[in-house]
């Protein structure tokens, strides 16, 4: 008993000392390749940390992965008590995060795009029903195309990338079913699980070349699902003009993050990693953090499509209304997102 009292007496001032120190809570983030300023994937997740810094007054640090070999090294250099919670951004960091989390059970981790089964007590996964938003984008694109051909390509053939492509293709199918049209999607087949992939998340040249190929095949709307690689596609679209080629952005609203080429973005499939990252930080500060999964859906605002911005006047009112109906249908479950 006396022991416990003395220990409490020692711990109390220590705890107070930590709590009174300004910005004692530190959130750290490890990006995937592509960089923190990629206008899409990594930047959106980092925005969540920045929001928390602004609103909750926490400290924030980040570390960029320049190659896949950096994942483990980067996590290692953030260990050792300097971070209260470590965010690892991306599916490809799944193995490294798991190893680090098991070796350091007292460190809080949160990973984007990965759910562990069984759950690890100190890792909170953030996953997204991106196909719901991509379904809307596919429906929109099918209604907007003039050539009847849409293009899509991905970064690496991993589930968080292909879920965009699946939803997009299913949305197009749904449009074809409703309107009796035959709009086709080049670059991804949801049944064979094969399609176009750049095999990286950082080459803008690849983004340009892949979009060029799809354009040459007749596509007038292209969806690049590869983070900053898509900026290369947007550069091509900006040169050709939006009458020839439109781009659908991913992760963030690219009209806002890439304003110089805003005119090429028909819409963006937003994956609100900023919102979920913020939510995790709140939980960690409040002490309610526990391992498991947060799922972002169309219903809870975790995923959505961005406003049409410059295309506001070009999207027919009837199509916009249909989109609202489809959206409501997905949320109430009357429209099943998935293969037919």
């Amino acid at each position: 008993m006396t022991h416990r009292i003395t220990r409490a007496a020692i711990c109390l001032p220590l705890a107070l000392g930590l709590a009174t120190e300004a910005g004692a809570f530190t959130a750290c983030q490890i990006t995937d390749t592509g960089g923190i300023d990629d206008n899409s994937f990594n930047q959106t997740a980092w925005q969540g940390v920045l929001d928390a810094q602004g609103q909750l007054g926490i400290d924030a640090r980040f570390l960029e992965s320049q190659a896949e070999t950096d994942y483990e090294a980067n996590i290692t250099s953030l260990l050792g008590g300097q971070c209260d919670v470590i965010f690892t951004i991306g599916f490809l960091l799944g193995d490294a995060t798991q190893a680090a989390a098991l070796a350091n059970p007292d460190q809080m981790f949160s990973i984007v795009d990965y759910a562990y089964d069984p759950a690890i007590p100190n890792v909170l996964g953030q996953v997204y029903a991106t196909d719901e938003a991509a379904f809307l984008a596919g429906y929109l694109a099918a209604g907007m195309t003039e050539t009847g051909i849409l293009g899509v390509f991905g970064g690496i053939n991993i589930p968080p990338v292909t879920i965009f492509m699946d939803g997009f293709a299913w949305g197009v199918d749904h449009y074809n079913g409703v309107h009796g049209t035959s709009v086709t999607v080049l670059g991804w087949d949801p049944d064979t699980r094969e399609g176009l992939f750049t095999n990286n998340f950082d080459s803008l040249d690849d983004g340009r070349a892949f979009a060029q190929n799809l354009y040459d095949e007749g596509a007038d709307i292209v969806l690049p699902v590869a983070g900053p690689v898509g900026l290369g596609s947007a550069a091509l679209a900006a040169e050709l003009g939006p009458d020839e080629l439109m781009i659908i952005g991913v992760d963030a609203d690219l009209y806002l993050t890439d304003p110089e080429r805003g005119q090429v973005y028909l819409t963006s499939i937003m994956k609100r990693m900023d919102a979920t990252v913020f939510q995790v930080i709140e939980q960690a500060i409040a002490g309610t953090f526990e391992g498991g999964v947060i799922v972002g859906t169309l219903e809870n605002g975790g995923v959505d499509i961005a406003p049409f911005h410059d295309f506001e006047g070009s999207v027919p009112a009837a199509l916009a209304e249909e989109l609202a109906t489809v959206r409501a249908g997905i949320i109430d479950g009357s429209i099943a997102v998935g293969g037919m």
Partner: protein
Amino acid sequence: MSDRGAVDSLLQRAAPGRAEFEDLVIVPLFAVAVALILGALTMLATGVDMATIGRSYVALLQGSVGSLGALSETLTAAVPLVLAALGLALGFRTGLFNIGAEGQLLMGGLAAVIFGFSFPGLPFPVLMPLCLLAGALTGALYAAIAGYLRAATGAHEVISTIMLNLISYRLLDWMLSLDWVQREGRSDPVSRSVPPNAELPRLLDWLDPNLRVHAGIFLMLLAVWAVHWLLFRSKLGFEFRASGANPDAARYAGIRASLVIVLAMALAGALAGLAGANQVLGVLGRATPGFSAGIGFDAIAVALLGRSHPVGVLFAGLLFGALEAGGRQMQVDAGVSIDLIGIIQALIIVFIAAPLLVRAIFPWGFRRRDKGGAR
């Protein structure tokens, strides 16, 4: 006076003295110092304040040698650089400018992974060395292609190794998508995992599971010794160096130039392959398209910085490893972009490649050269 000069240069050759010491030690030291100063100026020019610059260099030091964990990271990063650079140094000494370490490293690493998961039943003392051997042999064969092309057709090794690099990237992509290589349940290019009994064991994980330093450091030291012995104590090494110094003279002296070229390339490839095997067996545990991470190219810089001398390569590799590990800490502590480390590394190379420039900037660091004749 001219007699005096000839005697001087003879003496010089017999007992490398001050001038060689200056070239080997003082020039690199100054190069590093100037690069750090210019790095600070770069930060200043991009709007980083002085306090942050100071903090970032403290972090660079702490993150590279400031703790056991930092040392472990420095060594982990240095091992593949040193291994690949030793191979390149061997080539440079032979007069071969091998740009292909990246491709040789990829092929070697891939072979080590495939061998590892193909024979998971073998015990550790058999499987681990065999995996390393598979990596070295594959790297050697891949590099020997360029050596053979040079010897048989005169195709320049710079061109052919660059082309072989490009081939290796796509070959790796393709191999990683094959059913028997790709990890089950994944559709992205990632290989099956290396079984635990093929891994290079971690040395300090009993202290702290986050210390990644592994048995590859012994491999590195062994390779430094072996290359030193080969270059300076063996007949083959003499032939390599003679061919590098003057190919015509070497040929007239009866050295088989073609054989020397192919052998030197193969040995360089073997060391690069070992570097790849070291990465997959000691650090990554699998192969992915990006697993070389540019080590094969950084190793060129390491070999040049080390003046193509095995011991110099060891220290240059440790420096580059320290920069890599410290660079991460720099970004974490000071928020300075990790790209700055790339700039500092590049500056070091610029100054190493231009010793006259360094001599001009720091005249007081060097003995004045006799102008000759006057006295």
